[in-house]
């Protein structure tokens, strides 16, 4: 069983789902002959043909709109945003058409909208975004943001089989930087379940995507200082795994939330509210957060470094929290 990258895990999920179910089709910009800007869909066209792997014009609204229409006939379209930043161009189709369809008139929209997201690769203001919270605020959508190759493969399979519109964020910093062995059988990872990445007793670090790895590094460093941190990877942002969040807080009594998204109205605020509602008496200190700055993602390396959370920032915040 060779180790595979997260990108390869995603690619395998697409191949296996399209092999399993002829209702699964893929559409997006440059996904066919070229295999996608990041080569996630490489080989898909050759195997499944142009009826199932559709190179589209640069028209995000048309991509998602057409996918909604396809889903009404029982297809399960998987749309690629070349960079997830461009989801802004089809915001209306996602939030008004796809998300409200089942509630309004009982028409499920089983589509997946996937694409590379996140910073740390000097992509600048329009190729580095983490726009997940626009969509976490939209009832009717599901929002998934994995951090490992195994989860990416298993969660994408679950997303494709789900009867609802699922936004699937692929952190491009992780695409080829992480590798793991994954089973060859047809496994899935359930949407809406967090994972405990490291057991600990002194405080909880809640995170997801690239920041889950940063949080784990921070936890290792903290352990050398005698602080035993638990690290939880949310994996799904909508619906949130409230039970896992509350269980960990009740165990460690301290919560630090780390996300690469910007600070104001990031998911840390929502989680803080959930914890206040469900575990206020269990808290031994303030709920702290380490996040990106409230700015666009800047381009130049020293600026982006300043913008992003990192291990040092997480360790520093955890030290403060541990004092309570």
């Amino acid at each position, binding site marked *: 069983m060779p180790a595979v990258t997260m990108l390869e895990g995603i690619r395998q999920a697409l191949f296996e789902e399209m092999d399993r179910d002829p209702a699964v089709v893929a559409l997006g910009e440059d996904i066919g002959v070229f295999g996608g800007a990041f080569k996630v869909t490489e080989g898909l066209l050759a195997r499944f043909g*142009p009826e199932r792997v559709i190179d589209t014009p640069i028209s995000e609204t048309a991509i998602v709109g057409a996918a909604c229409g396809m889903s*009404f006939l029982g297809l399960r379209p998987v749309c690629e945003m070349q960079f997830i930043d461009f989801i802004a161009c089809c915001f209306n*189709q996602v939030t008004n058409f796809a998300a409200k369809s089942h509630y309004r008139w009982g028409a499920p929209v089983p589509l997946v909208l996937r694409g590379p997201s996140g910073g740390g690769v000097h992509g600048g203001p329009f190729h580095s975004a983490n726009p997940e919270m626009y969509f976490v605020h939209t009832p009717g959508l599901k929002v998934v943001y994995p951090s490992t190759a195994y989860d990416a493969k298993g969660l994408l399979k679950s997303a494709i089989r789900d009867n*609802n519109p699922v936004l699937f964020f692929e952190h491009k910093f992780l695409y080829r930087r992480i590798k793991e062995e994954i089973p060859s059988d047809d496994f899935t990872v359930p949407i809406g379940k967090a994972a405990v990445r490291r057991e600990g007793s002194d405080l909880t670090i809640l995170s997801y995507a690239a920041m889950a790895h940063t949080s784990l590094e921070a936890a290792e460093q903290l352990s050398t200082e005698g602080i035993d941190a638990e690290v939880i990877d949310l994996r799904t942002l909508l619906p949130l795994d409230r039970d896992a969040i509350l269980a960990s807080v009740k165990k460690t009594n301290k919560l630090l939330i780390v996300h690469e998204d910007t600070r104001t109205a990031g998911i840390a605020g929502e989680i803080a509210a959930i914890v206040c509602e469900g575990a206020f008496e269990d808290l031994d200190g303030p709920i702290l957060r380490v996040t990106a700055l409230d700015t666009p993602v800047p381009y130049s390396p020293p600026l982006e470094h300043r913008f992003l959370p990192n291990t040092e920032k997480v360790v520093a915040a955890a030290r403060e929290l541990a004092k309570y």
Partner: protein
Amino acid sequence: MSSRLTHEQHLELYYYMQLNRQLEDRMVRLFRQNKIVGGLYSSLGQEGISVGSAYALEPRDWLAPMIRNIGGLLVKGFKPRDIFTQHMAKYTSPTLGKDATSHFGDLKVHHTVAPISMLGDLIPVMTGVAMAGRYLGQNIVTLTWIGDGGSSTGAFHEGLNFAATQRAPFVLIVENNQWAYSTPVSRQVPVKNLADRGRAYGIATKIVDGNDVMAVYTATKDAVDECRAGNGPVLIEAKTMRMQGHAQHDPADYVPKEMFEHWKARDPIARYEKYLTENEIWDGKKKAEIHARIERELDEDQKFAEESPLPPPELAEQGVYCDGCHQIEADWQRPKEEVMPPKASIEAAWTVKSFGGLEPEIPGSKEVAAFDNGAKTPARAVEERAAELVSKSDGSKAPAQAPRVPFGRGPKDKSFARSAQHKPRKR
């Protein structure tokens, strides 16, 4: 009379137009009695477009209404009670009170997609329905409408361009009713005919008198036939007039009185009544029968709606997600093996028909749009230049053989095959 319709069908068209109008007349009364919860939009004067175009579809075909397409919903098989209850926010409405007006649909029986208020969004959606229908081998055509105002949205452009590149079996009716809320069409679109926009997408277009139901029906039927033959999409501009304000609250005093008078003299129902009489399709007795039937049906459905309950409050929390409440299953009308490996597998490589300069680099290559109104498409201009070039160089009019290169598009898929074969389309 050179119509393709039987007498029965002619009368059915009349029934739907008159049902559309009388249903809306009743809703105006209900609105004034405060029994309509939200807004009420009128299609007065535009009934011929909704009814005539929807009537050209077969039951297997799909449509998506806009707010002024009540007539299309009636033709597709929805009942007046569906319209009454939607407007009155009743639990018995198709959306159980969750949405209003014509914002409802049905996937299984009526093949109708519910619209949203953001204009233009249905164009890519119905393109997707058309593509999926073709993929599943269903041989369906899809249709939706857009107003003159909605034709300025980005979704209109993206959707129509995508439909055109896909040759989707999709008919778009542009209802040019002269006013987008309070703004005249001249301030929205700097061209005389909205159909001209279709030419920019390289698709077939047609302009019809929207207040002549037979003209609308005939043009749409031709368009549907062309789409089913693989020559879609088609854009039809139907010229008409919105005879009331944007909605009931709007007195439309920004519209010159003379304009209303001009169009009132061209009322689609009065004109069609004259047509039926002149062509001896009906008599006074037949007309009275239809009116009596409409009266009876509307009485019954209005009573049903008025007596229906409002939804229980807890319904507000239900149905955001499909948690297995719906079975999602595609209706395959072709062998699935065709879209699975190894049959579907191809060599993934592009071939190009043109090198993109001003000269025709590949003599004889051509792509002719069918069913257009004589517009010289860029492709045809190149073709003509190519023919000219050949005849000058070797004295013969015969076009040279176009080179065939693997194209990365499967031979099974007709929409792709045409690119590789350079076959002139049927005119």
